[in-house]
């Protein structure tokens, strides 16, 4: 029983991180119809910025804030300078550009920060809370990860639901031409959208790094799981990204916790889950292709 709870909590925590990464992909896909393959290395870059600050003596929290802000700037600048010129062209162009960015940013990280393994701190302990003399499998770090993602998502929901700029962003994402005719500065909204997506992506990179080692390609497995989560959810749906991330996190945790030689099976299981979902619902769990007309 204890073991089951432990595996479940691990799964939820990992799942939250996958959700955040998937959400970053979905935000960009919805607004610009581009699959941003560079999301992972953009997040890695900001994690290395945080690490450099921490190594220079800054607190974790200062480093976290600076990393998220630089994530925003990086996302916005990439949209304005690199993506904008290829937008509206053949769809494949933008995708190839993000693939190129993925490799280029990773190489840049290696040049600037080196390619050795470096340990990344976590602000909270990884030992379970103690209730009397039993230790429950929930750790402060679990709580921190889950809370950080939930707070970020709540802020995003509030932005999109309750603010004028959020409404303008949604209008731009759904119908650029109509939004433009209604006086919405669509270009600015797309830049803002990329910036926000990069913040969420950076958060996932910082959280997955906590308490482990980072190197230029440390995001690679998160990238795979984040993509799978986004596609399970339907790529078009923020709720889908979150649900997809949690499902995947739990499923992979059970596989690695219960199956014989489970940890070796994790990546393959992700693929099996992906194919299973797509066979039943080709558009993903939360696809809404019918709503997308007129």
């Amino acid at each position: 029983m204890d073991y089951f709870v432990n595996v479940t909590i691990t799964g939820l925590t990992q799942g939250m991180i996958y959700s955040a990464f998937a959400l970053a992909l979905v935000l960009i896909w919805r607004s610009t119809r581009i699959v941003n393959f560079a999301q992972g290395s953009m997040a890695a870059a900001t994690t290395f910025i945080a690490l450099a600050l921490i190594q220079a003596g800054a607190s974790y929290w200062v480093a976290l804030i600076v990393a998220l802000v630089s994530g925003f700037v990086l996302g916005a600048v990439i949209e304005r300078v690199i993506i904008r010129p290829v937008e509206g062209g053949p769809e494949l162009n933008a995708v190839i550009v993000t693939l190129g960015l993925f490799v280029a940013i990773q190489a840049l990280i290696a040049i600037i920060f080196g390619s050795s393994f470096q340990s990344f701190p976590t602000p909270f302990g990884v030992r379970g809370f103690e209730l009397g003399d039993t230790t429950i499998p929930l750790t402060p770090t679990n709580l921190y990860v889950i809370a950080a993602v939930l707070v970020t998502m709540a802020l995003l929901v509030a932005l999109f639901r309750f603010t004028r700029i959020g409404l303008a962003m949604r209008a731009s994402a759904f119908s650029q031409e109509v939004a433009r005719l209604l006086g919405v500065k669509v270009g600015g909204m797309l830049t803002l959208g990329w910036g926000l997506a990069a913040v969420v992506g950076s958060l996932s990179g910082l959280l997955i790094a906590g308490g482990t080692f980072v190197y230029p390609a440390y995001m690679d497995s998160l990238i795979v799981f984040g993509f799978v989560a986004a596609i399970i959810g339907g790529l078009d749906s923020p709720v889908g990204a979150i649900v997809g991330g949690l499902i995947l996190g739990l499923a992979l945790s059970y596989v690695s916790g219960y199956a014989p030689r489970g940890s070796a099976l994790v990546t393959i299981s992700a693929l099996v889950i992906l194919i299973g979902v797509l066979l039943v619902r080709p558009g993903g769990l939360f696809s809404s292709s019918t709503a997308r007309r007129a």
Partner: protein
Amino acid sequence: MAENHGATAVSAAGKSGTAAGTRLLEVENLTSAYGPVRALDGVSLSAEAGRITAVLGANGAGKTTLLRTISGLVRPVSGTVLLDGQDITKAPVESMVGKGMAHVPEGRGVIAELTVDENLRVGSLFRGKVGKGEFDRVYDLFPRIAERKNNAAHTLSGGERQMLVIGRALLAQPRILLLDEPSLGLAPRIVAQIFGLLRQLVDSEGLSVLLVEQNARSALSVADVGVVLNLGRVVVTDSASTLMGDEDLRHAYLGF
């Protein structure tokens, strides 16, 4: 008929600062092309303040291209567009609504994923904070969409969508409204209702309308002036009543 409408429009047009009958929107020698295809070929026309100007023509005549070029979605090869004397040929699309021109595109341009109320709010975003009273006024004009306020816009019927996009355009407080085939796919009763409302807004509030229609009979019955477009060129411009009475022209270009 046209004279009557003109007379009532004078008093109201004072509100928008342009006397009725003066040229609010002027299109001069406009040519637009899609690659080798010339969709507009030296089109000149004007829409007067406080009037409804109908642009009529068959499929492919260039009606949609005309409106899209006026609002900047299509950039012309040559020619100019003037709004109240100001050259807006190269102005960004986003700026048009701020200059007093609202364009309701072909196919209506409802943002399907947003609710009815959110669609209306997008229409007023560029103005900053807008009082609730203005929304209530739109809902009073169109009680049918008021009932659907919190529904996703893709659940609306064709007629309701048309009401929504016209209401949304009105929230921009335009001086001139560009409408691309509002009658398309609607029952005659709904068309009559919507056109009647346009007439009322023009007469009582000094709104000006540039109405693009294939449905020439309905359009001419509400318009003051008609412009017939064929293969990207203006064939004739005259008062709506004169065009109505010209049987040869109706048969040749208007299909009724």
